[in-house]
Every structure is written in C-alpha cells, then in structure tokens.
C-alpha cells in the first residue's frame, strides 16, 4: 500500500488549503495523482489521505478522483486499487453527487475510522456480495454461493465484477479440485 497525502497538492497548486476547488486546479493536479497511482506496485492500493482537506468540490473531484476511478475500472492502471481515507462528509457528498450527475457506473472505496464502505454506483446484488467479503475478510465463489443460495456461476460472476471494478482484490489458489480465486479487500 502506498499513501498519498492530498495536502501535498496545496503546494503543487500554489494554494494555502484547506480546500481543493475548481476544475482547472483539478486538471493540474491529475497528472500527479495518476503518477502516484502508477507508482504503486501491482497488486497493491494507493491510499489517498484526505486528512487536512476540508472540502473537495464536485469539479475538482470530477477531474481527479473520478477520472482515476474510471481508469481503474477500465483496466487502464492494471492490478492496482485506490482507497480514499477520511474524506470529510462534504467531500463524500460531492463525490457521490459527481458520480450520480455524470451517470458514471463507478464506485469508490472509502476508509473512515478503520471501517470500509463503498459509495457511488453499485448494483444491489454486488453490494451484498462486497459486504459479505468485507465481513468475512476473504471469500471464494463457492462460499458466496453457499451463503446466498446462488448458482456457483452467478456467485463467481458477481465477485469477478467487483474485481474488475477494482472494489475487491483477489489471489489465486490451487486446490485438489482445481484452481480458485479468493477475494478480499485491497487493504
């Protein structure tokens, strides 16, 4: 896991903080954030630490966090993840609003006081699967199928979608029955 303190952007943008505002400033910040994400070793997550940031407005969020999230879900950054740590309630409102108004099919991982949650666009059945993985720490498709009374293919598809959206990580395991994926949170 690599941590990026969002307050570092204040110096880059020539502002005093504590806010990250405006589309043009977001456009200026994006290459730095993208570089930070690309520097994360494959299989690990970039933790965007919002401590010290009071508000990120919708325009700034649209040009930075949402753009990175869309890139992750489109496999632009490979096997990497992004987690937002301690964004303020106003920032979360703006992120949710940005996703909703742009009608973007993307969700974000939020960590607040050591609790993880998802915001944004997540289908209810995927949210249910994600919540189970979060509660159990690790889950296979077979275990999810048993928990929810699903066909194994359906369970496998749900977990795969969450992985493709970079909302879950996974590792491969070889068992006597063959190969299987074990799904977990990225941090």
């Amino acid at each position: 896991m690599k941590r990026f303190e969002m307050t570092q952007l204040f110096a880059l943008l020539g502002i005093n903080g504590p806010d990250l505002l405006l589309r043009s400033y977001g456009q200026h910040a994006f290459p730095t954030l993208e570089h930070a994400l690309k520097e994360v070793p494959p299989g690990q997550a970039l933790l965007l630490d919002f401590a010290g940031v009071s508000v990120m407005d919708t325009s700034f969020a649209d040009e930075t966090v949402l753009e990175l999230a869309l890139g992750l879900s489109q496999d632009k950054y490979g096997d990497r993840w992004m987690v937002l740590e301690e964004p303020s309630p106003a920032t979360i409102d703006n992120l949710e609003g940005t996703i909703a108004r742009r009608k973007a099919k993307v969700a974000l991982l939020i960590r607040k006081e050591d609790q993880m949650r998802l915001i944004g666009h997540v289908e209810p059945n995927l949210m249910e699967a994600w919540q189970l993985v979060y509660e159990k720490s690790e889950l296979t498709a077979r275990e999810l199928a048993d928990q929810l009374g699903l066909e194994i293919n359906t369970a496998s598809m749900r977990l795969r979608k969450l992985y493709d959206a970079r909302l879950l990580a996974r590792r491969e395991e070889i068992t006597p029955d063959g190969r299987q994926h074990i799904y977990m949170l990225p941090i």
Partner: protein
Amino acid sequence: MRGELSSPREERDACHSNHGTLYSGKSGAGERETETVYTTDPFNSIDDLSRSTSSSNVLELFPICVHEDIYEVAARARYILANWFGSTSHDINNIVILLSETCSNIVDHSGDAGIVTIQKYDRKRCIDVNLAIGDLGRGIRQSLMAVHGAVSDTCTGYIEQALNGLSARSGERGGQGLGAIRRIATESGGSLHIRSEMGSVLAQTSGTTTCDDLYFFPGTQIAITFRSKPVT
C-alpha cells in the same frame, strides 16, 4: 498553479481595470444617472467598496475575475464563517462549496467579471446565510446556446436545463455545479434563486417557481439562502 497559468494576479489586475462598468463609483452622486451608475475608473476594491479585508463579520462585495479569486474568497469566507458558526464545520464546508461552484461559473462561462457577497441573518431557530453572486456577462441562455444551439424557447428553460446538468462546457464533463448548489441549499431548508436575462427560477424545498417575463438584465444573478440549524 502560480507560474503555470498566465499570471493570475496580472490577469485579475487587468480585469479590475477593464471592468469599470461592473460597479458603481462613489463619486458624482449628484450627476445624471448614467454617469453615476457606471464608471470606467480603475477598480480599487478596498477604496471603492469601503472594504475591510480583516472583517470577521461580513464578506463585503468581493470581485471575482480569475480562479485565484475564488480560493481567496473561500479563505476569507472560512475565516468569517468560523466566527459565525464556531465548530459546525460541515455547514462551513457546504457554504464554501456554494461559493466555489457559483463563482467558478462566472470565471468559466460569463465572459466577464463578477461580484460576490455574504451576509448573515439570525433567526429564531436558525441562522440564514445569504450569498449573492452576480455578473453582467453573457448569461445562461447564451452560454448554453454557444455549445448546444437552441434548446429552449425561454430564458427560464435554459436556467432549468443548466440546473438539470446541461453544461456550457463541450464534452461530457461539467454541468454539475448548479445541481450541487440546488441540493445543498434546499437540503439545508434554504433556497436557490437564479435570474438570467428575462427568466428566473426559485428552487426551494417545497418545489420550484419560475418566471419568464422579467425586464431584460444582462448576465446571471444568483441568490442563495443556506439555513444553518444549531446542533441539538
């Protein structure tokens, strides 16, 4: 951002000098109206508006010409709002968002400079923070027409399109600002009132009221009431 954009401070100074028609000069009060309302004298925000940059009571008329001004007004507003609200930071953050989104529309879309001011009204059970943001630029109808062509027959129609996410920015991004402003203002129990050219839209918790037969006035003028309730 400094050094990356083309000298924002210089742009703003030029902007202040070139937009004398935006404010009323203090001199010549007894002269004819056309001579007293407008002036082409260079703008000095402190002398001409009698502003106190250290006031913790009210954000007096503050000119918005470049993006840098928005960060400045947000910082000043934070200072004043902290004095008003103490530690209720969520309300402060929401008001900063209201300022940021409205003022960025001036810089990005009006083609002109603008002005913002904030005042506080103590009510029985809440505090109303009123924000007034205005410019004399191209207005919402012309901004949207430049990108999308004619999408409505009325000025009100264009305002409503903007509220619903139609952006004066080409491409899929943008158009979220006014919607966010409406959400924050009405969720607080306050309101958003937008007037542009001959139309106006008033959005409140109870619904939306429109008016489309106003006298023509250039640009866009926005009045926002944000209602801050004491923490119980």
